[in-house]
């Protein structure tokens, strides 16, 4: 009799301290960690973020805070401006707290898209995306 009760108690204690998560984080922190470990592996970085987004969406769960935006930024760095903007829009819609930052990111991306189209900058020379708007 006592054993199952004790097991339940242990389970309760464990779940009370960690285990349970609100969001479907998937491999998000692992993906970030690997990105810092191997920054040149861009494919794994983008794929890891896409996987986290897809897994949450497919389960009908809310995509965790910041993940759409990280994916948007990763795509912006790849020169995929349109896709980047769509993810910034998603972050802004799902998480109203991100509005100020996402509007900046969208403006920067649009500006960048304009510049790229106008000057026909080859993809290989594209640096990391523009920062928070210059304060000049």
């Amino acid at each position, binding site marked *: 009799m006592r054993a199952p009760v004790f097991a339940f108690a242990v389970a309760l204690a464990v779940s009370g301290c960690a285990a349970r998560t609100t969001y479907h984080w998937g491999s998000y922190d692992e993906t970030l960690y690997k990105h810092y470990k191997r920054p040149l592996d861009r494919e794994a970085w983008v794929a890891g973020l896409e996987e986290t987004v897809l897994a949450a969406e497919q389960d009908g769960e809310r995509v965790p*805070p910041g993940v759409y935006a990280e994916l948007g*930024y990763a795509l912006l760095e790849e020169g995929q401006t349109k896709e980047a903007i769509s993810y910034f829009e998603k972050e802004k819609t799902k998480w109203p707290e991100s509005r100020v930052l996402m509007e900046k990111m969208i403006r920067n991306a649009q500006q960048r898209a304009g510049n790229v189209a106008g000057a026909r900058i080859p993809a290989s020379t594209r640096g990391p995306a523009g920062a928070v708007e210059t304060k000049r």
Partner: protein
Amino acid sequence: MTFICRSAARRLALGVALVVLAAGCATAPKKDYAKLVAAQPRSILVVPVVNNSVDVNAPDYFLSTLPVPVGERGYYVFPVNLVKRLLEDDGLSDAALVHGADPAKLASLFGADAILYVTIEKWEAKWVLVSTYVTVEFQYVLKDGKTGATLWEEHQKMEYSSDSGGGGLLGAIVSAAVTKASPNYMPLARQASWKAMAFPGPGFPAGPYRPEHGIDLKQ
């Protein structure tokens, strides 16, 4: 009669469970959350980590572990990598510069309600004879994005030694990691943040995305 005995045993076991639960999660002295409650932050900007250890990779590695525990407290957590890159592009690639900047100005740049500053004090492994000692130590400070006032702070130190006889599940994970040539600090580092932010405990009350938001302090 047997029924009564059983229910008494059950009650005793539950009592033990509650004691275990309380001991595991809520031993730290109560903190003053008045400023945090008054500020009502909905979002937390986690800025790059300041490193006082000799491991140059530690701050980025540790940064990667922070969004999950902060987000799980029920706050909007800004995309840490995007934030880091924007700061770098703005000439703030040194985390110490970011930590030294005016919090209100920084917060307004991102539209953040609060900023979490994390500093690595220790991130090291020592080998003595056949034993391995891994230590991580962090300082966490949450500041108001409007006034710059400190809303919450916590210090966490986690140690693991391979001769401490198991050390439960975490011990097993870490010991598996340290048997390789270079120790994996990540399980210990993650555990430190979960512990630091746990509430009830040394952490901070739940944000608007948790069901216990607004009631956990009254309990």
